[in-house]
């Protein structure tokens, strides 16, 4: 069928309307809520499911006026033709998506898989460390290492028991599995680095450690392994626009050199990454982000404020306006 042709009329909407006629549909086929802030989306995209490899990410645009946010691929199913994203509702976009992204709805934009896939090296014994939302993208890594014949030690950290997810999936592909919670409500009580210490004590021959999570946690992981000289790979999560190496917004300092996380990473040597620089750069838009979230929280009891072309929303009273703005580091990649 020939696409409908419309001449550009008065503004940008006209252009995007034309775009829609040939647009791929990125349909949400399944959703699971892990907690009142963490949710999982399974999106139909057979081509991407086939291409995705552990460590890669996508850029999502939830609606026409939305921003492009990078999210790490948490899983992919080549048979079903889906990719899985685990998202934490921390900012305006992710909270809005928590409402709008129901089964049957579609994302406006989804592009990827982006970034250089994680190198699944020949290490015999590997520790896969995930903190908070970073637990999700750690899973395909652990599975890949396992399939590669490594002895896999899974170490995950959450704030509390209620936030724990995917324990079963990890147990299925890890030879050993350690959960740490800050309050001790599940697994061992303590920080994720306590879990790492424990693992290193028991297995001094760990060949590689992969850590994904908030920058402060990855920094701590890198410091924990540095004295033991264990190769440590971290997956950084800076702010991005295009994800194709074009804007340079995601630049990070690695070993004194400037790298673009989107095309040179997102995996880098944890002992070389300048985490303080990364954390500082993540605060770039904190003011604008806070303003947007506040504005959105106020308006979301009204009819959907953004305008035409937006996906349908569930009833507005589901909006949870009482959330305090959490750590901005948890925004961006991984949700």
């Amino acid at each position: 069928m020939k696409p409908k042709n419309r001449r550009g009329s008065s503004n940008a909407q006209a252009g995007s309307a034309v775009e829609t006629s040939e647009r791929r549909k990125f349909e949400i086929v399944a959703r699971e809520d892990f907690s009142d802030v963490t949710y999982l989306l399974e999106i139909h995209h057979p081509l991407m499911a086939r291409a995705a490899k552990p460590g890669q990410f996508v850029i999502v645009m939830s609606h026409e006026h939305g921003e492009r946010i990078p999210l790490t691929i948490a899983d992919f199913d080549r048979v079903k033709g889906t990719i899985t994203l685990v998202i934490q509702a921390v900012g305006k976009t992710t909270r809005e998506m928590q409402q709008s992204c129901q089964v049957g709805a579609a994302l406006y934009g989804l592009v990827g898989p982006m970034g250089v896939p994680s190198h699944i090296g020949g290490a015999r014994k590997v520790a896969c460390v995930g903190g908070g939302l970073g637990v999700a993208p750690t899973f395909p890594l652990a599975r890949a290492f396992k399939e590669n014949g490594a002895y896999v030690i899974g170490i995950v950290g959450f704030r509390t028991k209620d936030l724990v997810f995917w324990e079963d999936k990890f147990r299925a592909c890890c030879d050993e599995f350690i959960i740490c919670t800050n309050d001790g409500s599940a697994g061992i009580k303590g920080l994720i680095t306590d879990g790492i210490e424990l693992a290193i004590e028991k297995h001094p021959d760990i060949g590689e450690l992969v850590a994904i999570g908030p920058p402060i946690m990855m920094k701590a992981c890198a410091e924990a392994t540095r004295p033991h000289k264990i190769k440590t790979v971290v997956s950084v999560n800076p702010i991005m626009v295009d994800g194709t190496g074009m804007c340079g917004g995601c630049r990070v300092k690695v070993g004194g050199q400037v790298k673009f996380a989107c095309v040179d990473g997102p995996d880098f040597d944890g002992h070389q990454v300048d985490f303080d620089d990364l954390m500082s750069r993540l605060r770039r838009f904190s003011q604008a982000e806070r303003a947007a979230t506040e504005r959105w929280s106020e308006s979301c009891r009204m009819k959907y404020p953004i305008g035409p072309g937006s996906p349908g929303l569930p009833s507005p009273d589901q909006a949870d306006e009482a959330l305090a703005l959490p750590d901005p580091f948890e925004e961006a990649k991984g949700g």
Partner: protein
Amino acid sequence: MAKKKTIRTIPQKRAPMRQQDAHRRAKNFEEVNCGYGLEDALHEAERCLDCPDAACIEGCPVGIDIPGFIMKIGAKDFRGAYDLITQTNLLPAICGRVCPQESQCEGVCPVGETLEPVAIGRLERWVGDLAIAEGWSNIPYIEPNGFKVGIVGSGPAGMACAADMAKAGCDVTVYEAFHQAGGVLRYGIPDFRLPNEVIDAEVDNLRKLGIKFECNTLVGRLFTIEQMIDEMDYDAVFIGTGAGYPQLMGIPGDSLNGVLSANELLTRCNLMRAREFPNYDTPVPIGRRVAVIGSGNTAMDALRVCLRLGAEKVHCIYRRTQAESPARAEELHHAEEEGIEFHWLTSPVEILDDGKGKVRAMRCIRMELGEPDASGRRRPVPVAGSEFEFETDMVVFAIGTNANPIIGQTSKLNLDKRGYIEADASLATSMAGVFAGGDIVTGAATVIEAMGAGRKAARSMKAYLGIRDADAAGLTERQGSSGKLFGIDLNERNFARVRVA
């Protein structure tokens, strides 16, 4: 027929371009140049001498029949003028706006030797705009030839190549990583120079040729060039991914918050429409005192965007002088009119922290011009002991770009030392059936040069596929090359391979 025009008989003065007032326009994103009216166009068309050896055609990277279309305007056959332009250039409304005509067609116009040259670009734009307003489009009769052609990147090179291949009868799909087609025209060039509606209209014209645009598709990562040829049944592929990887200066402090590339600023503002934040979700915090480093066309765009976003003062910092500035004269002039302050012979050496990870100021050094360098321009040399502090809270780097690395990372194509794709004179790459052109081969250049490369690649692609190429015949005559045998152009190899549709 009217009597022969001479330099004495034509109107001596160019029809002026109506412009938005500098003070008013510095606050809005509406177009600066309002375009010609009918009277202006007829006046300007009168000024063309219709030279027999038309230097302007040679000066045009795509070889538009310039005197031809201007004569048609003069004869009030506007549709005819449009038809003539679109034989070689499907995007007149875009090229008429963004081409550096002063160094191309208008630069070689003989009228320009004594008077101001004929305003070819403005006339082209007028025809293009008229076509959009009237809803004209030229859809030739296309007989499908069964070949499938994939185009990577929907910027000017990709669009030009796609148009030619579609007209030749190929089934053409254009892949774009962003969510909207247009490439640099969309994310890079601001609305006040090239309104989005113009891009929409021109992209629509391509759709009418049967070209499919697939946005949200990152070729290289979603599927590779090799997969396109081996698994997805593409008979030929054109790569026009551009040179989008921004350069930074590598000076202390360039990762501070408030330091960004012109690409990031422009993408946020143009494509993501951050200027309408919070109605659009993408933010672009703007400084009070902005410093843009560099003085090319991208720098001019960045400067003027910052002004429109509400910066109090916008400064251009350039290490050479105005004479060496690579920006178009018109853009420089517009920027000056709008109140941009230029600091020639100045270069930053360090960006200073306010203690909270944000920009407080820059340390700059004065330069002086020394011996000419490889580019023929005089090399700037720092003046010892001339360092000074320059107060600023936002620094934008517009000092050039490098090759986009994604295709190189994900395919076995040969690259040159700097990471650009290696292509021969016909723009064929090291992989059979894969062609490349535009910035990803040559490094950053202009829109029309990229379009010229796209068309050149299309010619090579047709030769490779064995499609008879009506365009090539005319072209070889002009280039004075080998010529024809039995009416078949020698450039058309493999013509026996044409498949029955």
